[in-house]
């Protein structure tokens, strides 16, 4: 029936928001003030502290989409559907930011806007799969079919992404890029850089969880509203 609880603001969401704000502020301070300027790349390197956690978050989001999709297909409750949908919406934002920050970094550092290196390429494909997921939801003839079809995409897509990554990596080893830039992430990281990166990661995890929870609450509220509007339909003349 009508369950209003999960649509309300709860103590949990306030605490979460508070923590996220505090930690993110601290994080930004660390990134822009405390972190040392990279000897080779200069200040532009700081984008790395944002790019990497957000990239990790986009993959995490897709993992949540996959779990939600599997559970939805098994249990068919709207909670799992909402979880998958919300994670996909938040995830697509994160992937877009990943791609944009990647491009912004690539230009000054490598001299090109884009390169077909495995991580970037896989991220692009991930973006395409997210977009297909959301497209299927909105182009389906009705909501429940849309949820089912999207669940299939969420599962198949998630299974495929690692395969895509490895195949691009192998392909890349045969066709190396014209520009080989310093891929700082896998190189040597000074301890302080690593620590800031970790802080940033935690901050973004909090932001992700908060966004996810907000989106789910909004979705739930919207569903409730529609249910209420149909109550009058059920009265018998």
């Amino acid at each position, binding site marked *: 029936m009508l369950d209003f609880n999960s649509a309300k603001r709860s103590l949990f969401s306030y605490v979460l928001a508070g923590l996220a704000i505090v930690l993110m502020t601290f994080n930004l301070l660390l990134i822009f003030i405390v972190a040392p300027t990279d000897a080779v790349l200069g200040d532009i390197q700081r984008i790395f502290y944002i790019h990497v956690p957000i990239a990790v978050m986009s993959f995490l989001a897709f993992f949540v989409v996959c779990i939600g999709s599997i559970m939805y297909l098994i249990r068919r409750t709207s909670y799992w559907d909402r979880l998958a949908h919300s994670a996909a919406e938040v995830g697509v934002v994160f992937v877009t930011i990943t791609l944009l920050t990647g491009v912004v970094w690539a230009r000054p550092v490598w001299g090109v806007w884009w390169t077909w290196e495995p991580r970037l390429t896989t991220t692009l494909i991930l973006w395409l799969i997210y977009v297909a997921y959301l497209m299927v939801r909105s182009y389906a003839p009705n909501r429940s079919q849309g949820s089912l079809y999207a669940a299939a995409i969420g599962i198949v897509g998630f299974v495929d992404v690692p395969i895509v990554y490895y195949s691009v990596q192998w392909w890349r080893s045969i066709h190396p890029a014209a520009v080989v830039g310093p891929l700082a992430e896998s190189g040597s990281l000074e301890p302080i850089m690593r620590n800031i990166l970790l802080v940033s990661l935690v901050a973004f995890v909090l932001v992700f969880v908060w966004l996810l929870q907000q989106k789910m609450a909004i979705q739930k509220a919207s569903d409730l509203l*529609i249910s209420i509007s*149909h109550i009058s339909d059920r009265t018998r003349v």
Partner: protein
Amino acid sequence: MSDMIGKGILVQGLCKSYGNKPVLWDLNLEVNWGEILVLFGANGAGKTTLLRILSTQARADSGTIQVAGYNAKRQHQNIRQNVGVVAHQSLMYEDMTARENLMFYAKMYRIDDIKLSVEEVLVRVGLESRADDRLRTLSHGMKKRLAIARATLHDPKVLILDEPEAGLDEVSTVNLGNLLYEWVQKGKAVLMTTHNIDIGTNWANRVAILSNGAINEIDSIKVEDIKRKLYGNSMRPDVNYD
């Protein structure tokens, strides 16, 4: 027939919504063995939805549904084996002949003697002469008759028919009526929807109306009573509502 379990159709508390819009709720329905139940209802009342749920084409949100004694949630394959369906769509392939279509479905229903069953059913609906013509070339009425043939091919215990008489000529309509009558004489069950009140009341053992998401049964099978229930007080005596 001794192997009939339960009732032909038994529905209790069925609810179905599309998205958040409820279509059927708290719906109860019974069709006994050896009985034809004719269901009337205005367009959009949910008749097709109900039939689709009973034929396992769609799933109900909640409620107990038994068809031919089998539970719709757990034994849907059993239901499918024992139900014959005539739906709005033709369910058959335009580029294949009548005989090819029936033979294909005979394999789907795992019938033992395919040739025999197909010939029998073609004769029963009077299509032997056109059996090797492609469906494209058949008239609408003939396609309807073929649909009825398809529905009865595997000798199901329950027939679920959505406006089966629509588009049929006089002779074919009478044939269909006879077929249904013979069907229930053998102890089987039929659920049928129609907009034709005369035919519906003639053929029915019992009559029901689907409105406001649930079933109302009617005591008499008088045509005037049914018209009044369907169209309410807005009926005008001088207009023919058929």
